């Protein structure tokens, strides 16, 4: 059984007025990293929001199963507690809430939802120091409000840091490479690769092949007009880089 199984997924925005996903099928087995590539407007970000349950992104047909459970009706926080994690393309600024406080409250909320004990303050500090070191994130940054005044690269590092602390079962990386220079891309990729594990899977959503040089996928899918129109091995990403999306846009 695949970890994530999406079948015939239809989804709309604007109260069902605007269909974006039109019969999408995808399965991602445990331990694998899959990439979804596609032109702008093909529905990649919508897919990430539908999977994580954002209000306003309505599943109108089809099914999303995570570890055998239909999660289509679950609240975003319930999906998070089951281990679904979205690294945002544009991480949100939350003035007045220190990053450290935010991550600790999120971790403990998830643990509580899973009937696990809360992490004590000293244990949390040990944990976050260890993970922050992997991503070159300073304690000074962690004391600042969530993402406020951070550069694009710093925001993406914070997304991956949160993933390292929350240890989700399944990561969705939405355009994680956007806005990153080559050094930041390397640091972020190292963080992501540290999360690779036989018990975890990932969906890497990207417009460009560049990120896949650092996070090598097991499978590559091409998305166009709300569906997966081609799937293949890592060589498919190279082909897209060389030839562009034209033939898939036409095929859709």
């Amino acid at each position, binding site marked *: 059984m695949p970890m994530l199984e999406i079948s015939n997924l239809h989804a709309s925005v604007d109260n069902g007025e605007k269909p974006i996903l039109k019969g999408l099928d995808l399965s991602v087995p445990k331990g694998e990293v899959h990439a979804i590539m596609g032109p702008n407007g093909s529905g990649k970000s919508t897919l990430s929001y539908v999977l*994580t349950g*954002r*209000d306003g992104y309505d599943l109108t047909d089809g099914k999303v199963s995570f570890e055998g459970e239909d999660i289509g009706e679950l*609240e*975003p*926080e319930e999906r*998070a*507690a089951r281990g679904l*994690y*979205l690294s*945002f393309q544009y*991480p*949100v*600024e*939350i*003035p*007045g*809430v220190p990053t450290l406080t*935010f*991550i600790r*409250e*999120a*971790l403990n*909320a*998830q643990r509580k*939802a899973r009937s696990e004990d809360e992490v004590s303050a000293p244990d949390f500090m040990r944990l976050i120091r260890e993970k922050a070191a992997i991503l070159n994130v300073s304690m000074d940054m962690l004391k600042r*409000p969530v993402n406020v005044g951070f550069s694009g690269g710093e925001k993406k590092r914070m997304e991956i840091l*949160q993933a390292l602390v*929350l240890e989700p079962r399944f990561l969705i990386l939405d355009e994680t490479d956007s806005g990153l220079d080559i050094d930041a891309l390397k640091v972020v990729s190292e963080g992501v690769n540290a999360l690779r594990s036989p018990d975890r899977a990932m969906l890497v959503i990207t417009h460009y092949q560049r990120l896949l040089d650092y996070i090598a996928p097991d499978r590559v899918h091409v998305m166009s007009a709300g569906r997966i129109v081609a799937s293949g091995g890592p060589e498919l990403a190279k082909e897209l880089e060389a030839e562009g999306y034209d033939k898939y846009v036409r095929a859709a």
Partner: protein
Amino acid sequence: MTVQMTLTPAETALLDALDGATGWRAATRAALENRGLPNKRDEAWKWTDLRRLTGNITETGKISIAGSREPDAKLPVTHAPTDMLPRLAGALGGEARIYTLSDGESLSLDLSASAGVGHVIYVVEVPAGVSAQVFERLSVADGGFANIAVLYRIGEGASLDRIVSTGDCPGILALSGGVDLGEGATLRQTTLTFGGKLIRLETHLAHPGAKAEAVMDAVYLLAPNRHADLTTTANISGPDGNLSQLTKGAVASHGHGVFQGKIHVEREAQRTDARMTHRALMLGERAEIDAKPELEIYADDVQCAHGNALGAIDETALFYMRQRGLPEAQARAILIRSFLAEPLDRIRDPQIRDSLLEDLVTGLEVLS
């Protein structure tokens, strides 16, 4: 033609209490008979209809004052305040309590009002050069109408931190505050309110310019069926003065918040620096917030600004927090708290600051 106004039972009871009054008290009685209690036909009260809500409160109530110390003196009120409510407090509140603060003093006053109508008037003197703090906590029982008037006189070069907090208020509270600021003096005022059946908190600042500085900050958080009205006026009469006002609010459906702020900069008040900001969150579709920020400037070399912004909770931030595992109610509470905390964070006394921030968190728990 004079339109005869039908008096409410509350007004009739007040007139009875003023029977046989002389001097300014008699004038107060006549004005009450003529115009009634403040109501929505008065421009300054158009969003807060005190007359309607006090209508049937006729019995005499009591306002108990538990202070960290007794007043230095109790004196008859000989001069009439200007506005109707402080006039009534002066006429019917007995002798004025006078507190003269010493350097470094921290005075706390807990005023709690029973059902029925109660009046209190007190004066706080901060002599020249003295630094002090006053913490006023107010509550009014169900069926109560507490009319409280206070005058602060802050002497030359003196400094006052004033914190006002209203607790449980199923009743009606009107707090009218006058502040006379001396040259080179400092006022730092912070108000926290969760509203009541009706709460009106007024501050009228007489600001001399003259290197004096005033901060008037406020926070309101209103559950359903709670009303809070924060009204301030500031008259700046001389050059080189500073004034800064930050009011933040959040109102649930069927709650009603009012902010009225007026800054009047006289012709002589050159080089005034005055800023007024009001920002509020509507927490539900049936929330009501009315705001009226006003700047009247007669001097030509000033820096004055006002801003007023109403909005809803940032849905993107809410989703981001829920995606990380925070339940919706908790995520909302964190966002509202972080929005409202800013004025409270500026309170200098750490114990009072923490206690008000705790009250805020408790208020948010009640809301969710």
